[in-house]
């Protein structure tokens, strides 16, 4: 079953995406559970964009769940019709991505779970966890636990400036670092090759 509610990072903002076919009570329950397991990952007072096409009552109840976890909601006005004219460079800066962008270092005890790809602009420290449905890209050091392709995607990869993790997981495979791990000097990618997790310099 598809998840009833997911967070997406779009244009540097958090967008709440609600599955239109899900029961609204399931949406509320899943949202509550997700925020509870996020373990203070979202900054207090972070602003979340609410999905369009909600009834007033649904909007009020979503805001209620968000505020319990210290987040506030912002309503997005739907843009009507295609944009006209050529895009300038400044518009391209805020390009859309399906990936979740985490714009900080994840520290011990912090956990991010996302069904798409996750990009961390910062380090993944020991004791922190990232679980992604697709790829994980870390613009920093990977010292914590990264699990790419967590829902079975064998083609998922983990890329980091420095892979120093003691354990990496891709799909159902768990790889433990050798005890005499060399210090990496360049960007590396971990992927599944011939049934095992290998780490090699990124192309």
């Amino acid at each position, binding site marked *: 079953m598809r998840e009833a509610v997911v967070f997406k990072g779009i244009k540097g903002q958090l967008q709440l995406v609600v599955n239109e076919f899900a029961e609204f009570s399931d949406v509320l329950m899943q949202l509550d559970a997700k925020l509870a397991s996020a373990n*203070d990952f979202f*900054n*207090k*007072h972070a602003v979340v964009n609410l999905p369009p096409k909600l009834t007033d009552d649904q909007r009020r109840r979503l805001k209620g769940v968000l505020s319990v976890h210290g987040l506030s909601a912002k309503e997005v006005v739907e843009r009507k019709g295609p944009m006209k004219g050529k895009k300038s460079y400044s518009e391209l800066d805020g390009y859309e991505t399906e990936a979740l962008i985490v714009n*900080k*270092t*994840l*520290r*011990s*005890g*912090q956990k991010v779970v996302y069904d798409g790809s996750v990009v961390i602009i910062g*380090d993944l*420290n*020991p*004791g*922190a966890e990232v679980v992604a449905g697709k790829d994980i890209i870390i613009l920093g*050091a990977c*010292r914590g636990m990264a699990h790419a392709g967590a829902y079975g995607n064998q083609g998922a990869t983990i890329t980091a400036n420095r892979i120093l993790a003691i354990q990496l997981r891709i799909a159902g495979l768990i790889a433990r670092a050798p005890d005499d791990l060399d210090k990496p000097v360049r960007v590396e990618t971990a992927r599944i090759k011939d049934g095992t997790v290998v780490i090699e310099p990124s192309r």
Partner: protein
Amino acid sequence: MGEVIVITSGKGGVGKTTTTANLGTGFALIGKKVVLVDADIGLRNLDVVMGLENRIVYDLVDVTEGNCRLKQALIRDKRYETLYLLPAAQTRDKNAVNPEQMKQLCRELSEDFDYVLIDCPAGIEQGFKNAIAGADRAVIVTTPEVSAVRDADRIIGLLEAEGKHNPKLIVNRIRPSMVKRGDMMDIDDIIDILAVDLLGIIPEDEYIVISTNRGEPAVVNPASAASTAYKNIVRRLNGENVPLIKFDANNGIVSKLKRFFGFGEG
């Protein structure tokens, strides 16, 4: 309005209480009016380290429960007129106060004092939440051990979640000779993981044990190696620009440390 600084670490035994006592005494030495708050309810130590145990009449919980006025619970230090202590209750536990009460307490204290230093208990539970509630800034104490650094990292994350950003780091109990041999984590390794500003480095010093048992903070003894380090940290917290480490391309961390501690070639 004074500034409220919480001294915290996550892990126990890394030197929060010793640091609080020495920084507080250091502030008094430069003439600042300072109060030390022991937030470790049920396991109070700060009064012992300060040598003020026999003067306790009222404590922090008495204040929050309204059994006495705040001024009645404050103990003036026996050596320095501008140094005060608000002791923790020993017969209660962490749940005897809540973050809201601590915020109120810190607000009141910061009206009368230049600096309010809060000695945070170990752990991340109620006691930690109480201790950081009213703080404007946080100082993290760690030792050059993997476990202490890991806990410091967790604490930094929790502080961020509470909206307290840019904590400063004190690395305690560094042994330059061990770092030189490669047997101890060096400062660069620690900063690489924690990615926060370094406030100071305290060398391992036997005199700390003596001073703790005597109830007389080491910072007042110029012969103590840790004393200079504490004094420099006090000046940095007070807004002075005291150079931390001089970087030389061909010199390693040991020479940097030597210069910093003032026992190097000059």
